[in-house]
């Protein structure tokens, strides 16, 4: 027996793809992904219409989706994140049905509880055998963890594995096993390796970014969580990595050994584990080549599924055991709500990813962002889109001060006692407005183009078209 079929078209036919179905994709190949475009192009060529696409994320490489929407090949989108190019088109109203935005954990949870039904999952696999055992750790398009693809494999009615690196059966070190897979197809290339992961991710050299990172690290220091067994998540951006660097320095000084770090994994977190600052890495996604090499070679670097990472439908997930998370924001408001979905003009350019998952799960959630970005104040009276509820955000750190959520009065007092520049969030807003002026209200009064679901599936906010 072999599940190997000779072409993508054959796989599509065998899996039974028809009009009105929901198909799914993961985003581990990031901006180097060829698979989503490849499948949609083939479906269009075969005359299939009215597809609902559930992709864990859409990047700018997926711009051809816009054409498929215009041609009615795609009539529905469900994502956790959407890059600027597709986002702009959605904000202009090209898709009749509102896009469904979920968080990474919410997507896994909704697949588990049946709210997000998938007919066929097309899973890009950097390495697979003819029965569908697959891994992201090997092959020319290696991406490391395949964390977001587990739910697709487990809950879709049919699963098609698409690989460009077919190995003899059995692929010994597989991530997702053959039991979930229906068909395997081998293509020339599943992605552009140079865009799948970064060569290296670097700590910012921007002094303002470093100042923000240093202040965020001081919040961590004085929070009481920085002790043996500490668990930590930070992003892959230069300023987030700078927080990791300062945290590492404090762990070295105080001889602290942490428990785990997780999230999007970079070489910096790998080096922290290798130096003994963390016992293990729980990896749902790799961001650079060092992380890919580490997950392949180091047994303490563990691949986890999106469900184990953050699913609210699971009996527990790793975010529930997380001490501290460092998060970004494009906008925040005086109620501490955070927007990571839209830009200052109200156009879609992002999404929750794990933002709202970790904010709710972690004991301490810190948003670190510049007070003024592109001449606009970070803090508004009301965010354009509520991506993460303010009640799950503990602290907002900017270069001009730290605002602590009034719900966490004890932490506020601790930080004041430590001599940190704690300011009321209204005061921070005023400082920014004194410098940059009060921005004009953005008019997004058109029809609803997206619905933002919270991780438990409830409606958090909607995004309106520009006109």
């Amino acid at each position: 027996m072999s599940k190997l079929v000779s072409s993508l078209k054959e796989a599509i036919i065998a899996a039974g793809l028809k009009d009105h179905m929901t198909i799914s994709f993961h985003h581990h190949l990031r901006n180097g992904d060829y698979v989503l475009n490849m499948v949609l192009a083939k479906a269009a060529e075969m005359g299939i219409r009215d597809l609902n696409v559930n992709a864990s994320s859409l990047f700018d490489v997926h711009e051809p989706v816009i054409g498929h929407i215009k041609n009615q090949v795609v009539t529905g989108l469900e994502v956790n994140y959407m890059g600027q190019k597709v986002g702009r088109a959605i904000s202009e109203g090209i898709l009749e049905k509102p896009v469904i935005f979920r968080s990474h954990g919410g997507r896994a949870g909704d697949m588990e509880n049946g709210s997000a039904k998938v007919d066929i999952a097309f899973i890009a696999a950097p390495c697979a055998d003819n029965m569908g055992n697959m891994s992201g750790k090997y092959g020319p398009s290696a991406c490391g963890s395949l964390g977001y693809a587990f739910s697709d494999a487990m809950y879709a009615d049919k699963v098609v594995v698409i690989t460009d690196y077919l190995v003899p059966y059995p692929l010994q070190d597989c991530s997702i096993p053959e039991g979930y897979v229906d068909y395997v197809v081998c293509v020339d290339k599943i992605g552009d390796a140079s865009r799948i992961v970064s060569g290296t991710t670097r700590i910012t050299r921007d002094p303002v970014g470093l100042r923000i990172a240093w202040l965020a690290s001081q919040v961590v220091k004085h929070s009481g969580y920085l002790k043996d067994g500490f668990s930590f998540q930070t992003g892959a951006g230069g300023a987030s990595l700078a927080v990791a660097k300062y945290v590492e320095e404090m762990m070295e000084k105080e001889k602290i050994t942490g428990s785990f770090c997780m999230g999007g994994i970079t070489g910096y977190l790998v080096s922290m584990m290798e130096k003994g600052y963390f016992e293990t890495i729980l990896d749902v996604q790799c961001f650079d080549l060092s992380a890919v090499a580490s997950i392949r070679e180091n047994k303490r670097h563990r691949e986890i599924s999106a469900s184990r990472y953050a699913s609210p439908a699971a009996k527990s997930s790793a975010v529930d055991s997380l001490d501290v998370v460092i998060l970004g924001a494009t906008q925040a408001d005086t109620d501490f709500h955070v927007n990571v979905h839209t830009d200052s003009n109200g156009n879609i350019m992002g999404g929750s990813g794990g933002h709202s998952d970790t904010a709710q799960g972690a004991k301490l959630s810190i948003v670190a962002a510049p007070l003024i970005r592109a001449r606009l104040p970070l803090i508004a009276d009301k965010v354009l889109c509520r991506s993460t509820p303010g009640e799950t955000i503990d602290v907002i750190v900017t270069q001009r001060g730290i605002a602590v959520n009034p719900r966490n009065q004890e932490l506020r007092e601790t930080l004041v006692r430590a001599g940190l520049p704690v300011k009321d969030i209204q005061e921070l807003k005023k400082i920014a407005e004194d410098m940059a002026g009060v921005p004009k209200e953005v008019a997004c009064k058109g029809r609803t183009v997206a619905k933002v679901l919270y991780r438990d599936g409830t409606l958090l906010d909607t995004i309106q078209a520009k006109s």
Partner: protein
Amino acid sequence: MMRRTMLFLPGNAPNMLINGDVLGADSIIFDLEDAVAPDEKDAARILVRNTLKYQKPTACETIIRINPLDTQEWRADLEEVIPCRPDLIMPAKAGCGQDIKVVADYMAQIEEQAGIQVGSTGILPLVETVLGVEKAFEIASAHRRVAGLFLGGEDLTADLHCKRTKEGQEIFYARSRIVCAARACGLDAYDTPFTDVEDMQGLVKDSQLARSLGFSGKAVISPRHVETVNAVFSPAPEEIQYARDVVEAIEEGKRQGKGAVSLRGKMIDAPIVKRAMQILDMERQMMGGDFQ
């Protein structure tokens, strides 16, 4: 005025100009000289003027480095910035007392025209030529606006026809001369920046050397150097405690009507009291400023 660190920021970098005051330095120097290309001088002047006008830092002192007197630029620099009330003007390549007088006179003209109290802006001469080093006392005593002396090591070594090294043997004389000249006038002296941004150990060593020679602070060219230099030029906790004990012992002596006071078996004389007061003054400024 405590100036442990004076951070250079390019006058043509808006993001740095508006955020300079959050980087922990006691003073920030908006540079209109070397950091700005000749064809951007006018744009930088306007940016610095507007920063001073609309977003003048409140948490630290602002110093403007203007172009040298042998250029066409320095007058325009002053015309643009003086009406916006920077704390200090730093004339580059100050070579003699007359240079300071020329700058001070022109500043007075602008202040008068702008309706600002004449003399309200100080001068921090940048001594970076061999002539300037030899005339350091003359420069320091040239005008009541002079607030201290700042040594520039890079141009100086070019003028000395020698190589600038991390050890700094080649500027040892200049350092000592500048400190003596400044102190003789009751002023502070500030040391040249350490230019290797990555070498933090070298920075510590260089800063410690400067402090040991009598400098009150040091310029830095990278925000990453601020914390280290601040630490070197800040009194240690035990120094602060000793200073407090000295002041307490003196006050107790006064209450008891004692002429001579001793602490831990040693007589406390006037220089010890003066030093203690200086340290406590620094501590007050450190506590009162923005969080470092």
